[in-house]
């Protein structure tokens, strides 16, 4: 059996003159989680829509669960589950009716569709809300229902397109718990996100994508190593403190100290962790530098992204529209 459940080669997709995907390669081994990480408009959603047969690629090839998406899209649909950033549920139906309908359309039959619907509502904490129209659900509940919809036919592969975009912090943590439980169950998962933390927490492997192209790939740790180790951030009280603080940190730093005059803050790459931090604080104190804030930071995936692309992975003003051109 093919060990790579998702495999894509050279995917290209244009929307008019915009090149949404520019030769994307992906490989997701069975039972692993791949995060496609990138800012809005990077091509994440386009990639998912192509792999889930919602969209046809202009060039390139891909197989999902060993089935070619171009020649046999219908069989691919039998094996996948998709949950998008726009909860694909019917507002007027209840949660139960939504799941039952999906079961029927997967041709599970009346009995199995019903029991599966109840089972999933229970599992996603929607038992109480199950008989209420979805219109009355919160954003987080809709997403959970949508995810439940993706799982109705117990798919081999699950695609989650920005599963927590637009959720409040509580909804996000709940969603993470649910996804982690799926991962523990051995689901092969492709997840897109613009949140570094999300990729860090959930994925075995991360592909950083920008302008339709993979610009880096590896585990979270490997990517962090790529941009270097930890650093000390210091914010001082007045501009006058900056030069002295800069001099002190430069003695301890493993590289160049970055000074942000506007924010009166300094960033120094260091090695030695907490020991170096304590040493730095002692010297700053001895030099009577008034420190407002200080911290030892390990690199985040934001740093990785910045280092790789030269820009932050900040969500654009248009929160979600970029990838979805209709």
């Amino acid at each position, binding site marked *: 059996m093919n060990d790579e459940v998702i495999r894509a080669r050279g995917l290209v997709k244009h929307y008019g003159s915009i090149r949404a995907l520019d030769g994307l390669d992906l490989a997701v081994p069975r039972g692993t989680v791949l995060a496609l990480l990138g800012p809005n408009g990077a091509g994440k959603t386009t990639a998912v829509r192509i792999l889930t047969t*919602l969209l046809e690629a202009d060039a390139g090839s891909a197989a999902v669960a060993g089935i070619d998406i171009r020649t046999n899209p219908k069989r691919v649909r*039998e094996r996948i*589950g998709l949950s998008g950033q*726009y909860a694909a549920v019917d507002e007027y139906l209840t949660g139960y009716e939504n799941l039952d309908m999906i079961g*029927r*359309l997967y041709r599970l039959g009346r009995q199995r569709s019903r029991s599966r619907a109840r089972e999933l509502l229970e599992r996603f904490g929607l038992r109480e809300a199950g008989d209420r129209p979805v219109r009355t659900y919160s954003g987080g509940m809709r997403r959970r229902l949508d995810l439940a919809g993706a799982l109705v036919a117990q798919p081999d592969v699950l695609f989650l397109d920005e599963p927590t975009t637009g959720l409040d912090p509580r909804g996000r943590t709940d969603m993470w718990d649910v996804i982690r439980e799926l991962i523990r169950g051995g689901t092969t998962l492709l997840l897109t996100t613009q949140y570094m933390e999300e990729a860090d927490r959930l994925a075995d492997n991360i592909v950083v994508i920008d302008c339709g192209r993979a610009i880096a790939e590896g585990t979270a740790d490997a990517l962090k190593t790529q941009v270097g180790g930890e650093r000390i951030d210091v914010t001082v009280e007045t501009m006058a403190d900056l030069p002295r603080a800069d001099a002190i940190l430069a003695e301890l730093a493993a590289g160049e100290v970055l000074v942000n005059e506007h924010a009166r803050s300094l960033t120094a790459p260091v090695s030695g962790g907490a020991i170096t931090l304590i040493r730095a604080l002692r010297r700053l104190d001895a030099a009577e530098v008034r420190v407002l804030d200080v911290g030892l930071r390990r690199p985040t995936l934001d740093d990785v992204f910045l280092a790789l692309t030269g820009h932050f992975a900040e969500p654009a003003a248009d929160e979600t529209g970029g990838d979805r051109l209709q």
Partner: protein
Amino acid sequence: MMKRLAYSVADGAVVAKRNVIKIKRVPDVLVWVLMSPIMFVLLFAYVFGGAIDPGGGINYREFLIAGIFTQTVVFGATFTGAGMAEDMQKGIIDRFRSLPMSRSAVLVGRTVSDVIYNVLSVAIMALTGLIIGWAIRGTFVDAVTAFALLLLFSYAFSWVMAYVGLLVPSPDVINNASFMVIMPLTFVSNAFVPIDTFPGPLQRFAEWNPVSAVTQASRQLFGNLPDLTGVDAAVLQAQGVRIPTPSDAWSMQHPVAYSLIWVVIILAVFVPLSVRQYKRTARR
């Protein structure tokens, strides 16, 4: 092929059930659907009715009802178009697309569930009609046949509007788009005025217009056409009764057959066209 058809029907039924639940949960739409035919009946019967003489001694209200039936079921197709356009904008359509379901199911489900609107509005109109002086003078079987023909034609026509619904960018456009199609079809027909009152070229159009055929067929089956056999036309004319010139077009001589031909043509053209457009829109 048979398997595909069976899936299309089974999946279509699931989607239709979903649409019916929506009708139940948002009954406002239904109220409007049922109000407008009543408005039309009253408007034509009492505002224009006095000015239009169907001829042959037939009461205009009796003449009118079959026309209103046809007009209403044709207009009812607009709901199918709007529903389809709305479906395509909703998140649920992404779910449908990612499922291994029949690609025609969303269309089949939509057109089938909208039959409910038509059944209800025809029922409401029939009641309104009976109150204001319409009568079924044919046999029971003929009357049932007439209703069946109306609903069959409305079903076929809803595929036309479903196709339009897939073409328009948003449901708001649908009303204007359908107006362009439906207005000439219903007004240049025998639905509201007798066909022999049209000037030459328009009369030809009206005679071969499917809306006229369905109306004519209904009038025939309900027994709402003037029966001039064994009556001396001259005597009637002397009494001031207008004698209509019967159309000798084949379509008007055989309105049931001609209507059925249209049903078949519309379905044969618009079912494949709509399914193709759905797939295309779906993969954009």
